[in-house]
């Protein structure tokens, strides 16, 4: 029961992860897909194509992408209202995700959920939960089902550091540890819960240490470093799959944008944001790849263009989508049962 701190130098990780060029480019592409999708969402929000609350993941992409590498298709994922990144990294089609942002019937949740409620049964993506901490007990239950049904699956549960103050966090970690369930708890510690800085929400700011009091082995990892995250997640997942019970991963990160689209960001300095942007997961990884000679500037440009095309296609798909007929409003409140 110890907290492992990664040191940020991961040059040695290459072979551990079999970090061949293809995989590296895959990671970069995935992060880029999230980044561009969301940047487009921000624009669409200004155009009032997307409404409601929109919480962007910009700056935190390495976490979803890194962790998802270790999951199989039959593992389960539980996320929050800041879940576009997880959905994309999990493989949900960007087209249907964008249609969901619009509220169109072609959306992954039939348009009913919008940004905060992305669901996908095929990839066992269980949302999309807008109650802070509300997803953690679900993850415990999903893992319990897998265990009792004898399936060797893991549930990855993502949440912010703000959720760590909620009772649901405490109850869920205890249950998972007590019952030795296959849950990977991933805390995306971006230092703020809306406008509340970590040191004003937690008496113990090292979130990973909290896992100790449930006897859950935990690691804290640089949340801006996709390789470090992948490595830490793979290690934790292997331990879970080996029957070791739950694991906890704290990823130290930062959101580059406002909490949601209604946030003047009075609670933090511009300089702080700028400093973190310099450590951005895309920026750093791209630089590292370029320095390692794995990627040329032309290739970057090509990649960006490809992703831009995918995003454009997603927007076109969403635009072309239909509104769910009002007559279907009450459909699926309950399961329609054969009469």
């Amino acid at each position, binding site marked *: 029961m110890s907290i492992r701190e990664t040191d940020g130098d991961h040059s040695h990780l290459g072979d551990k992860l079999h970090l061949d060029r293809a995989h590296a480019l895959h990671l970069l592409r995935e992060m880029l897909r999230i980044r561009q999708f969301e940047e487009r969402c921000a624009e669409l929000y200004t155009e009032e194509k997307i409404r409601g609350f929109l919480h962007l993941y910009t700056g935190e992409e390495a976490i979803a992408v890194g962790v998802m590498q270790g999951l199989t298709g039959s593992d389960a994922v539980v996320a929050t209202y800041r879940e576009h990144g997880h959905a994309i990294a999990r493989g949900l089609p960007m087209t249907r995700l964008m249609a969901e942002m619009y509220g169109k019937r072609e*959306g992954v*949740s039939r348009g009913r959920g919008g940004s905060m409620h992305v669901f996908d*049964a095929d990839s066992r993506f269980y949302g999309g939960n807008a109650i802070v901490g509300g997803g953690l007990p679900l993850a415990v239950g*999903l893992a*319990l089902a897998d265990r009792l049904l004898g399936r060797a699956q893991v549930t990855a549960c993502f949440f912010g550091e703000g959720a760590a103050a909620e009772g649901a966090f405490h*109850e869920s970690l205890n*249950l998972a540890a007590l019952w030795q369930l296959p849950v990977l708890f991933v805390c995306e510690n971006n230092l703020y819960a809306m406008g509340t800085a970590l040191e004003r929400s937690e008496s113990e700011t090292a979130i990973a240490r909290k896992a100790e009091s449930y006897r859950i082995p935990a690691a804290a990892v640089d949340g801006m470093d996709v390789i470090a995250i992948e490595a830490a997640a793979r290690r934790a997942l292997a331990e879970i799959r080996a029957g070791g019970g739950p694991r906890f991963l704290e990823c130290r990160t930062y959101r580059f944008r406002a909490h949601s689209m209604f946030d003047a960001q009075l609670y933090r300095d511009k300089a702080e944001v700028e400093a973190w942007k310099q450590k951005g997961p895309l920026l750093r990884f791209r630089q590292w790849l370029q320095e390692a000679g794995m990627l040329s500037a032309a290739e970057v440009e090509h990649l960006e263009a490809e992703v831009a095309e995918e995003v454009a296609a997603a927007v076109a798909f969403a635009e072309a989508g239909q509104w769910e007929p009002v007559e279907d409003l009450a459909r699926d409140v309950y399961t329609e049962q054969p009469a």
Partner: protein
Amino acid sequence: MSAQMIEISYREAVREAIREALNRDPRVFLMGEDVGRYGGCYAVSKGLYDEFGPERIRDAPLSEAGFTGAGIGAALGGLRPIVEVMTVNFSLLALDQIVNNAATLRHMSGGQFSVPLVIRMACGAGKQLAAQHSHSLEGWYAHVPGIKVLAPATLEDARGMLWSALEDPDPVVIFEHVMLYNRSGQLAADAGAVPIEGAAVRREGGDVTLITYGGSLFKTLEAADTLAADGIAAEVIDLRCLRPLDDATLMASVARTHRAVIIDEGWRSGSLAAEISARLMEQAFWELDAPVGRVCSAEVPIPYPKHLEDAAVPQTDDIVAAARAVLNR
């Protein structure tokens, strides 16, 4: 249909229902505080732990939000959990999970996920457990789209509703009134599943319709006896299912009796009785010969001493008086 009858208590009927479910479907398990080694705070699950073991009779730590949410997750994951929240009083701690997850997931996911979960809880006053342990919040649950709400009052329903609830693909909340557990009577030895929709006419009568459910059913039947002695024929309707409500049975009865009283142990303002009164207003107004009456709990935290507890919750005399009042005699 075999006519062999056995003597059984409500508690045992619920236990038999749980046992049957565990035997019939390997996906079923019971989870809650002290359901296992302790045997359940109202001894409902006594013996099941020895029979089915700790995985299927799963003791949970004191963490209502956590284990109820875990039940929702387990249902999503393919199991058929029976979550026992010891009493409705503690279910407030789990209400976010029930309202925001169990009740919404299907609709919100565009029909992708359903939550085949059953939540059982004890409810009601009568055991002198005072303000924090005597709530009747069935009406709150009946307000929430996405869940179904049952209130078995009879042995048949205690025995038969659980399996149907488990077969239902959506979340079902079952309320067991604490004063019913010790009631016993005759039940068919082969009693099994009963439908979980529709109200039941427990006694027929043409003068006034008494509408009730759960813990108040037997008080209401007693009141009907008293009224009968005075020549008043009361029809007694047991709602059985609090969400959805069976309007047809209610309206048909009132179309015959033209008068109605609703008996509900919830606090009066905002009670389930209010909803039923409003429905009678909307659907049977022209049939009514008198305003519909309500017999509910006094709007106070339920006090400990027996005389005050009795004064706070509906009693047979109150029901008789209310029936007389709507009949003007």
